């Protein structure tokens, strides 16, 4: 015998000063990272510490809105809550950053996933595109071929 059960627990994640600055900047169509004073790496999205040096980080810097693809996958498997397949997800290193941030790549033809478009090659140039009304969410922007 099985008894149905369900967890419905709302969370309001405290995201801290660094991520708050990042999301507030998205509303202004800007993208922020943080620069470690020790190693000078610029992480996007910003954190309050450097994962490499294990030191606190306070300096926020604006990074560019062009970048290169460091990793990309085209998803053909449908999944609850995801966009209609196929779609492309990439990690892109933006100008001035030393780490990559994930988001969707739009504006590419994915009708034949056996021959992925050249625009999705690793190292390809992409640009950030913002939606009409940025709301301070990671979904405010995506990437498109430059």
């Amino acid at each position, binding site marked *: 015998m099985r008894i149905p059960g369900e967890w419905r627990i709302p969370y309001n994640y405290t995201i801290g000063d660094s991520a708050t600055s990042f999301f507030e900047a998205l509303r202004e169509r800007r993208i922020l990272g943080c620069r470690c004073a020790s190693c000078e790496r610029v992480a996007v999205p910003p954190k309050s510490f450097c994962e490499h040096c294990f030191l606190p980080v306070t300096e926020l810097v604006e990074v560019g809105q062009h970048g290169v693809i460091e990793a*990309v996958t085209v998803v053909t498997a449908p999944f*609850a809550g995801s966009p209609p397949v196929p779609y492309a997800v990439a990690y892109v290193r933006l100008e001035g950053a030393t780490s990559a941030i*994930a988001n969707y790549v739009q504006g590419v033809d994915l009708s034949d*996933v056996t021959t992925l478009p050249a625009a999705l090659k*690793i190292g390809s140039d992409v640009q950030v595109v913002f939606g009409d009304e940025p709301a301070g969410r990671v979904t405010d922007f995506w990437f498109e071929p430059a």
Partner: protein
Amino acid sequence: MTIPSPRVGIAGSRVLGPAVELPGALDALIYNATSAALDDAGMSITDVDGACMAASDLLDGRAISTMTLTGSTGSFRKTEMRVCNDSLAAVLVGAAEVASGAADALIVCSWSKLSDADSNAVLPLAMEPVFHRALGFHPAAVLDLRRSAESGAATVTADQSLESRDVAVATILVAGDSPRARAHVIGFGASTGPYLRPGEPVLDPVRAAATAACDMAGVSVNDLSAVHVAGLARVDDDALADSLGVATGMLVRPAEPWADLGYAAGLTAMCRAHEAQTTGPVLVVSAGGLGYENAFAVVMEQT
């Protein structure tokens, strides 16, 4: 970490399943596994000083599942430890407890009863919530993004055929010089790579964990008789063997390599390796995380 002599022994073990569905309540399954492992060791619950388990509240659907399942793990009025990771991590913690002298004998157990749950609903909760879960992409893409960064080419995240299986598993660890020891765990290794930050070769954590376990055991990969692989279903034999520096024929995969045993995978593989009675040192490796960013390894040998 160096575990002082004597080494840690394995006195008994039991694996229930894997099966599409193991009937019975979760605590009954766990009891069946732990009590059978004690029987296999010729021991009773009064002979053990505690339990170390690998479990996940999320997968179990219970808040603080250690408390709700305490009776079945055999830890009433005893030391109870839990890791929220693959069960080889519980072996590592339990072995440290025995090797330190804090316990003479310990139950290490793990389980997965995902037949109770909708894994498609559970999987996304493993994603970091602010920058990744909000995007809502397929959790399997995490591994394929790591592969993309490593290979320098776009990948395709196609339909995944991992199938959940129910399993309950337990082993009894004893001091290495115990007459009950039928096998010994002589090396441990663990390694954690960056999560959701592609760039590191996918199998680096597995290789690092395996190397650490072999180093601790004082054996080289050339000395190994077999390599039992837990999980890692989306890594093919050639890539894994190449990463570990062993021949492909050395690898021992589960009967259902596409089965998802959750956190119980590592201990299940270790118990299967014990049951195989292979002569010589045997390596057991496991990896967790959506992209195999977290790996564990043990080296064991029969007495």
